[in-house]
């Protein structure tokens, strides 16, 4: 079962929820935690994993053999990203713009273009206190997160529970991280900002046809907008975490809720049971 933890708005508590859910389930399940927020991965700060392996994130960029090139311009014409240009008797490549689709090398009539790998990040894996751990790190200055996210997700094991920590937002990195999930937890806070971004996140998971539920974090301040919206849209609020400076202080020191306040483990186990119920109801509904 794959559960992704997403949010729309940043800083609502995705990492807090993903790590504590993983630690609460590890005694009863095989758990893999994938940190797909490759721009700003934080799970390792709380999980302190022992890293046992790593591999680079590579995308294939064109390498032109100018001794074979006839400067016909086909490569520049087919590149949708303007990552290769032919100017007179020069071919210029812009590796940072290249998505690595392979069109230029395949379509070059002279077979003058080969591909070489360019590193845009790294994926590392290991384990922490009985939890399998994988994260990706985009190299500072690189723009494209999806290849690193895809690489992290290659490590999703087919058995046990896989928990994915998703980057904030609603665009391509988010979709890359949450697609193929069985369930998506949306973490939000009870403010107009939290509500606005929750609505966008709900639209995203609905477009991907993934069932979702809400974790309401920092409850007790703000307003009732999120709860009213969830009621109206029939989205279950599966867990409520109060605004509590003690929780914030623990987090500031890199301590998870499951570790720092073990009484929360039961709530995360219940959360998991409810997710299982919703996901299995849905499967049986689809079968019918």
């Amino acid at each position, binding site marked *: 079962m794959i559960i992704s933890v997403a*949010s*729309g*708005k*940043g*800083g*609502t508590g995705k*990492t807090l929820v993903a790590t504590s859910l993983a630690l609460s389930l590890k005694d009863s399940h095989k758990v893999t935690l994938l940190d797909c*927020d490759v*721009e*700003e991965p*934080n799970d390792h*700060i*709380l999980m302190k994993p022992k890293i046992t392996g790593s591999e680079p994130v590579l995308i294939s960029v064109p390498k032109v053999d100018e001794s074979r090139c006839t400067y016909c311009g086909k490569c520049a014409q*087919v590149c*949708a*990203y303007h990552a290769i240009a032919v100017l007179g008797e020069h071919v210029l490549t812009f590796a940072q713009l290249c*998505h*690595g*689709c*392979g*069109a230029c090398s*395949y*379509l070059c009539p002279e077979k003058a273009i080969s591909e070489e790998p360019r590193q845009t990040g790294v994926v590392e894996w290991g384990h922490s206190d009985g939890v399998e751990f994988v994260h990706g790190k*985009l190299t*500072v*200055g*690189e*723009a*494209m*997160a999806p290849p690193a996210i895809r690489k992290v997700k290659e490590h999703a094991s087919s058995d046990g529970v896989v928990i994915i920590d998703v*980057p*904030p*937002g*609603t*665009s*391509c*990195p*988010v*979709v890359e991280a949450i*697609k193929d999930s069985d369930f998506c937890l949306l973490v939000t806070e009870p*403010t*107009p*900002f939290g509500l*606005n*971004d929750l609505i*966008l996140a709900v*639209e*995203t998971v609905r*477009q*991907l046809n993934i069932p979702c539920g809400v974790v309401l974090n920092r409850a007790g*301040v*703000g*307003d009732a907008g999120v709860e009213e919206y969830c009621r109206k849209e029939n989205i279950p609020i599966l867990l409520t975490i109060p605004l509590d*400076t003690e929780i*914030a*202080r623990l*987090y*500031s*020191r*890199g301590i998870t809720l499951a570790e720092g306040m073990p009484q929360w483990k039961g709530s995360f186990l219940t959360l998991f049971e409810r997710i299982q119920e919703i996901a299995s109801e849905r499967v049986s509904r689809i079968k019918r």
Partner: protein
Amino acid sequence: MRELVVLSGKGGTGKTTIVGSFAALAKGKVLADCDVDAADLHLLLSPSERQKSEFWSGQVAYIDEERCTQCGLCQELCRFNAIKDFRVDPISCEGCSFCSHICPAEAITMKENMSGYWFISDTRYGPLVHARLGIAQENSGKLVAVVRQQAKQIAEEGGKDLIISDGPPGIGCPVISSLSGVNLALLVTEPTLSGMHDLERVLGVCRHFGVLALVCINKCDLNEENTRQIESQCLGQGVEIAGRIPFDNIVTQSIVQGVPLVEYSNGKVSREIERMWRTLSAILRNSSKEK
């Protein structure tokens, strides 16, 4: 023209609260919300929409079933696994158009993709350019570029000399697009290990692109030891601390009321944001117009 962008690396550290207050404090500026994924600045500024425009960007492959001979070449060559059972999954398609060039039956065409909207709105604080990227769309960086370009144009037409942008979280494509060529970046962090880790990375991006950055420590009393560590790390790297904001529930209350904090309260947090604005505006005044 001078541009200030507010970034953070980690989300939810207080970028929008601070930009909302700068909107109320700064004179003669245009506001830009560059968080096109999850824009929130409009919720503080009560905008009235003046113009709504479609954002067309990129393409998506489309297979004509009648022409398709199901040879499978496109599925084999697509590196984004976007074609399954001779159908294109528009969400996975990156619009590279490789398939359309190699289809022996010429059954694949590329269709233009409408991937969001951008808006020009009037607010009490001046014009606001904001946007909404379509759900699950790509090219957020290009939409950010459109927002900035529009803001610049409005500023020039209105004889305004300053653009204040609310940036997206992270360090990737939309952040780079928000940051390139601005005069000054304010990086809002919090004294948590996550906030500190993410600050380090976004500072790296600013250095990479040669943008002067100052740091604001929000909720600085949450963990004073971490706050001191941020201060000493910044000092070591020659990065100035522009402000230290204590935690106060008044911030949430002002968001609920939908007004900039400095107009809602004249407490400690507001005074610190005002002080920070004076620091930043002095730096902006002295920075080159030519950038």
